[in-house]
């Protein structure tokens, strides 16, 4: 449907596009994404010849686009821009029918198009057709902007960051609308964005660009599972699940930096430590840092006056787990044992951290929402 062959562009010594080749299939939603200055918008504008390449060819339906008249070419390519660009001197209906009017459709035909398109996005014709853009909200304006691009039913529609100036709620609903329009009309869309969430949501295929080159071109699923570079991974960020929940271990859920105390320490020292940290138990370790057990303030109160160190008061009743243990098992143990925390030990029996209900919940939240 759309094919770039070795397309390059330089401004002076700066390479904007560097030997770009790719192909987009008919009916696909292709999303161009990348850091700013990567050439994604330039690539898009080459399709309707707002920008011409220095080298290379672009084919639309097998035809070299430079063989066609620019103006005529653009009338058969839908175009939506970030700033919306509805003509303020024209009504909504006139704006929608700009291209059909240029193509000299009859007045009745234009009316029919405006009516059916407005209805398709749930804006009643009677209410909106004769309004001016300045009387509408940004979201409504961009809806009309999209309808303007679709009016002459072009086989391909270009969208240049169409939603980035809209608030998140409006953006969501317009994304859904574009998706359903695209599926309904089965047109080829080329969509530029810098928002990875938008790309993952909309795309059949994502083209990730950087410095005028394609870094990876893949369906969203594949990009998520096999990002081609660290940069893409950064862009994917929270959408990548490094581990599936099954592989999570106690180490992922524990809180580190816990307070420990050596078994030979005095009673008073321990009590003041507990008071300072506002805890009711301490984890007791030996000289090598190996876990010995716990000592609680209740035991100290009961028998603390007959012993000098905490050693006799250490209990081994608190449940422990290994750092590599399955997270779900740890969770079950924490709930069923009724203990307020689990002690996590490493291979040598040293204390790595503890798992509390709070640390568990925050680790789960991180997995879920990033």
């Amino acid at each position, binding site marked *: 449907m759309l094919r770039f062959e070795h397309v390059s562009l330089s401004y002076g010594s700066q390479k904007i596009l560097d030997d770009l080749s790719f192909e987009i299939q008919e009916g696909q939603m292709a999303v161009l994404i990348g850091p700013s200055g990567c050439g994604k918008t330039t690539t898009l504008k080459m399709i*309707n010849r*707002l920008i011409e390449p220095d080298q290379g060819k672009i084919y639309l339906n097998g035809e070299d686009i430079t063989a066609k008249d620019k*103006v*005529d*070419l*653009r*009338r*058969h390519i839908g*175009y939506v*821009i970030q*700033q*919306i*660009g*509805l*003509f*303020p*001197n*024209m*009504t909504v209906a006139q704006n929608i029918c*700009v*291209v059909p009017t*240029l193509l000299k459709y009859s007045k009745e035909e234009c009316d029919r198009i405006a009516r059916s398109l407005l209805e398709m996005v749930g804006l009643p014709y009677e209410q909106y057709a004769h309004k*001016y*853009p*300045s*009387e509408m909200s940004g979201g409504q304006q961009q809806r009309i902007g999209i309808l*303007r691009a679709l009016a002459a039913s072009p086989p391909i529609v*270009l969208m240049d960051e169409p939603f980035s100036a809209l608030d998140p709620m409006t953006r969501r609903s317009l994304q859904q609308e574009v998706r359903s329009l695209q599926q309904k009309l089965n047109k080829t869309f080329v969509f530029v964005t810098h928002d990875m969430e938008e790309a993952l949501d909309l795309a059949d295929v994502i083209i990730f660009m950087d410095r005028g080159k394609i870094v990876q071109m893949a369906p969203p699923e594949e990009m998520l599972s096999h990002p081609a570079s660290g940069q893409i991974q950064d862009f994917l960020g929270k959408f990548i699940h490094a581990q599936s929940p099954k592989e999570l271990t106690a180490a992922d859920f524990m809180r580190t930096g816990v307070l420990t105390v050596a078994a030979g320490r005095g009673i008073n020292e321990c009590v003041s430590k507990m008071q300072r940290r506002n805890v009711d138990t301490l984890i007791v370790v030996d000289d090598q840092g190996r876990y010995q057990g716990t000592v609680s303030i209740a035991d100290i109160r009961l028998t603390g006056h007959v012993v000098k160190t905490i050693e006799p008061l250490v209990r081994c009743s608190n449940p422990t787990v290994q750092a590599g243990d399955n997270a779900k098992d740890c969770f079950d143990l924490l709930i069923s044992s009724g203990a307020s925390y689990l002690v996590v030990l490493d291979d040598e029996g040293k204390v790595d951290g503890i798992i509390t209900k709070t640390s568990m919940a925050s680790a789960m939240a991180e997995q879920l929402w990033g």
Partner: protein
Amino acid sequence: MGWSTLPLALAQHLMFTLASVAIGLVLGVSLGIALSRRPKLSGVVLPILSVFNTIPGIVFVGLLLLVLGMQPVTVLVALGIYATFPILKNTYAGLVSVDQQYIEAAKGCGMSPRQCLLRVELPLAMPTIIGGLRMSTVYTVSWAVLAAMIGQGGLGDFIYAGISSNDNGLILMGAIPAAILAFILGSLVDLLQKLAVPKGLRKGGSGV
């Protein structure tokens, strides 16, 4: 010279004004469009025009008199050129200040440069252009007084006669109708402003 000659003088004055403004409108808008298409050229031409603009009308009419002689054409050429300046400047300013988003959208929709100009740029620049027309009209009414200087009539006859005979009544007989004429023509342009400015631009919002 008295009340009986006033209607004729007023008619002459009006004719000079209307004809010159018409010339100014045609020249101003077309030159304004041409310059707005060539930003580099306009960077040179506009400052030169501003300098010309500062030549006093009286000097210019005098110079033209030497070339063209004492005839109505001299007046029309002089006033026509003066009427051109405000319209040209405003046309240029109105066109270059049209937001790029509309031009990009127009291009992207497949408008030819000519269609883009006629359907998008000129309508959006219309408020500014008509502002220039208003300025030009009001100025020309006062400049048309100069026609009398080279014996071509108009309300200037009264004013010059009044000055040379030290007759304030005669001066006012020229000046007051001229002021009223300026006011009426200015109001007519305001009316035109209402009719010619696209509806969508009048309601405030996102215009130029």
